[in-house]
């Protein structure tokens, strides 16, 4: 990295979806961008998730009671923007990204679950999302391969899936064409704030250490954000969520929709190649250090009990799945915030320091990166970002000591 003396307007830490998409937008807005990725691009949650494009209120918001569901419903306004973003993303990046938006069904098995769906759909409709409730007969007409025992579903015509293995590459390549510098194998090993409010970062890469002085830093490193913010004594309430995804062998096209479940953890869809992808938020097991604390630097392990439960739900919803063979199950670690909403924007205690992380960031990542880039370039956050700003957790930094 010797010879890289040019000044950067921003250092982005993390070469995943949010980091690379932010780099692309910021470079297009004329900023000089440096991206530092510790491993290789897309090696974290951005490439490990199963690529669902879900815009209905997620089950994780519904399983903590009506108050949490009402709070969670606020994310629908962002989901609507994300939906528009995905509609245009292949055109925007000028390449196919396996984006399929043929619709999504959140199924219910019981009358109690149908009531929860009705509550959810009413809230979504109020917020401008055109979900609709299908009864059992309507569901069977639309998706005859699903179990006849299902009581119904919530239908949203725009849901679907995309390929998480090629999206980040598209953003990174575009960012590079716009002048962004991207350094892989390069870890942030030191971060401090100078008296003038700028940041001094130490990057350790293949060619040794490099010190970068920059007015702005964006931490876009998923569940590692709290550790990196901790270098400045700051607290970002994000917690690791280790998950599992599975893929079956290829079969003829049978499932054009994204399938979710209102009463059980499930996501299921079919790839362009014909494989069925199964997930839905079932935990894997975090690696542990010798002292018993979680080791976020090693991959989580498949939890067989949860894998069996995940596949059982999937086969209950789509009986034909029982004839398929499981090719592979893998783990990936995302994170959730203290209130389940993503944390995106400037840290009040540290002007110039931005973070962007949280759950559902495959679906929401592209639009959040766009909004964040506007925030950074214009110096103030657009209204759409207001409920996701780190300022709602400002009390956690009340005792931080910065220059």
């Amino acid at each position: 990295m010797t010879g890289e003396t040019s000044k950067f307007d921003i250092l982005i830490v993390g070469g995943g979806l949010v980091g690379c998409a932010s780099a692309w937008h910021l470079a297009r807005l004329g900023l000089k961008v440096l991206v530092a990725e510790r491993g290789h691009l897309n090696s974290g949650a951005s490439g490990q998730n199963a690529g669902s494009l879900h815009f209905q209120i997620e089950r994780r918001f519904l399983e903590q009671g009506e108050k949490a569901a009402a709070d969670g419903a606020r994310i629908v306004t962002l989901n609507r923007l994300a939906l528009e973003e995905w509609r245009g993303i292949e055109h925007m990046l000028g390449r196919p990204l396996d984006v399929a938006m043929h619709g999504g069904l959140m199924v219910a098995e019981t009358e109690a679950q149908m009531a929860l769906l009705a509550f959810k759909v009413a809230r979504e409709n109020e917020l401008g999302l055109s979900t609709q409730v299908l009864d059992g007969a309507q569901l069977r007409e639309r998706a005859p391969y699903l179990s006849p025992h299902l009581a119904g579903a919530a239908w949203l015509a725009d849901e679907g899936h995309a390929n998480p293995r090629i999206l980040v590459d598209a953003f990174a390549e575009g960012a590079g064409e716009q002048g962004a510098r991207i350094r892989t194998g390069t870890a942030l090993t030191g971060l401090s704030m100078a008296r003038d409010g700028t940041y001094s970062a130490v990057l350790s890469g293949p060619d040794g250490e490099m010190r970068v002085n920059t007015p702005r830093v964006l931490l876009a490193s998923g569940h590692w954000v709290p550790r990196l913010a901790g270098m400045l004594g700051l607290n970002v309430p994000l917690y690791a969520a280790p998950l599992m995804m599975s893929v079956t062998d290829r079969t003829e096209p049978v499932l054009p929709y994204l399938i979710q479940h209102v009463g059980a953890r499930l996501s299921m869809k079919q790839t362009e190649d014909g494989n069925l992808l199964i997930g839905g938020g079932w935990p894997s097991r975090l690696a542990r250090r010798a002292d018993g604390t979680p080791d976020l630097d090693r991959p989580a392990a498949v939890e067989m009990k949860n894998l069996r439960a995940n596949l059982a739900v999937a086969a209950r919803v789509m009986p034909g799945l029982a004839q398929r063979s499981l090719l592979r199950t893998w783990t990936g670690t995302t994170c959730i915030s203290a209130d389940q909403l993503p944390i995106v924007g400037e840290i009040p205690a540290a002007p110039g320091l931005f973070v962007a992380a949280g759950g559902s960031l495959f679906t929401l990542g592209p639009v959040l990166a766009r909004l964040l880039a506007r925030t950074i370039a214009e110096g103030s956050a657009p209204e759409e970002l207001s409920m996701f700003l780190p300022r709602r957790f400002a009390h956690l930094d009340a005792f931080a000591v910065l220059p």
Partner: protein
Amino acid sequence: MRRIEQGVTRPEPIAVEIDGASVMAHPGETVAVAVLASASRRFRDDRSGAPRGMFCNMGTCSECTVWAALGTSPWRRVRGCLVLAEPTLRISTRDPESRP
């Protein structure tokens, strides 16, 4: 591919079925061994229909994927190197459901 015969003792052979033909295998051998010993080294076909052979013999490459069924139980896709040959085992290197 042939079994080593000299200086090796094996359990009495059993019959398994590979693509409709009866093939002898010894208990403790894998399905992959039975296919290799059947004079055909052909396992799965790739998307263009070209034949593929076993590569890693340790459950990683999936090149030895075949269909297997015990007796009249349903066909399952398995990696031949991870499944032991058993009496009444049927093996198919083509999808048995779509066979003409």
